[in-house]
């Protein structure tokens, strides 16, 4: 259920994002097929149903965006974990503020060096 809700939340971002696509180095058909396979084979019926509903243009757009950080092999490793793929897809459309994560990293390194954080 949680995954299905996430999928439904992700869909509008994906569709809106299609209008402001980043330039793509070229269509990676194997990557596109891998994205489709991971989502269509999701155990949660609402994710797999939603994935079947989307057309080729959508998958081309998503694989174009993912190609800046992943290849087909990377995507296929997420078979059985479609929610991780959805997280990554959303990440390509929304730039996350990394400052809080950088502060945590600095604090962990301070701990490692023996300095008080």
């Amino acid at each position, binding site marked *: 259920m949680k995954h299905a809700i996430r999928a439904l939340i992700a869909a509008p971002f994906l569709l809106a994002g299609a209008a402001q696509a980043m330039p793509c180095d070229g269509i990676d058909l194997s990557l596109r097929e891998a994205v489709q396979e991971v989502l269509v084979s999701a155990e949660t019926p609402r994710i797999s149903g939603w994935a079947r509903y989307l057309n080729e243009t959508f998958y081309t757009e998503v694989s174009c965006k993912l190609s800046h950080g*992943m290849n087909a092999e990377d995507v296929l490793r997420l078979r059985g974990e479609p929610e991780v793929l959805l997280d990554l897809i959303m990440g390509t459309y929304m730039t996350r503020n990394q400052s809080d994560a950088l502060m945590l990293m600095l604090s962990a390194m301070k701990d490692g060096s023996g300095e008080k954080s």
Partner: protein
Amino acid sequence: MDQTDICTLESLRRAKTDFHNKLCRASIDSDPLLLQKLRSENVFVLSEFFFLLSAFDLIAHPNKLEAYILSHNRQLNDLIASDERRKLMGLEVPRLKRGVFSMIQVHKAKANLLSATPGLDQADIQRLTIMLFSPETGRRVIECLEAAGFLTRVATPYYSKIVQSHGTIEKFFAEYLAQVRNDVPQGGTPKPEVQT
């Protein structure tokens, strides 16, 4: 208009632009796509990671590295347990779990520092930067810095890749910080820190 604020903002922006310009000029490959990637925010963030590793001398001391990794694990477990904090940071549980080190992985990371080619395994870097970006994005940023000649990845017989920095990105990052420190106008009245 507070001129000090504007000057401070200009200093920050100028120093960051200069940092990326230096990376592009020092790159051994001038492919436009690579140079574009060198100007990305993820490159800046990974450079900060390498700078801090060097500044805290974590690669030279296995015990320090272990303490860092254990602190990193605690942070991830805290976030996994805290729904609210995790959502504020825009992170998901499956991703955070991919960043947690097992005790065997902690020992391997320490052992890598004592090998003939000391350094962090690429997979360990991907775990340590899991809050910053996905492992796949982390690998691409590492590959980008390697293509530019700033890092070397050494394949080991154990199917791991030890990442060794040549020190350039750390140097440029230190220069970026020094530039910010020197350029920011002195004498402004510091405002109280805002608690959020």
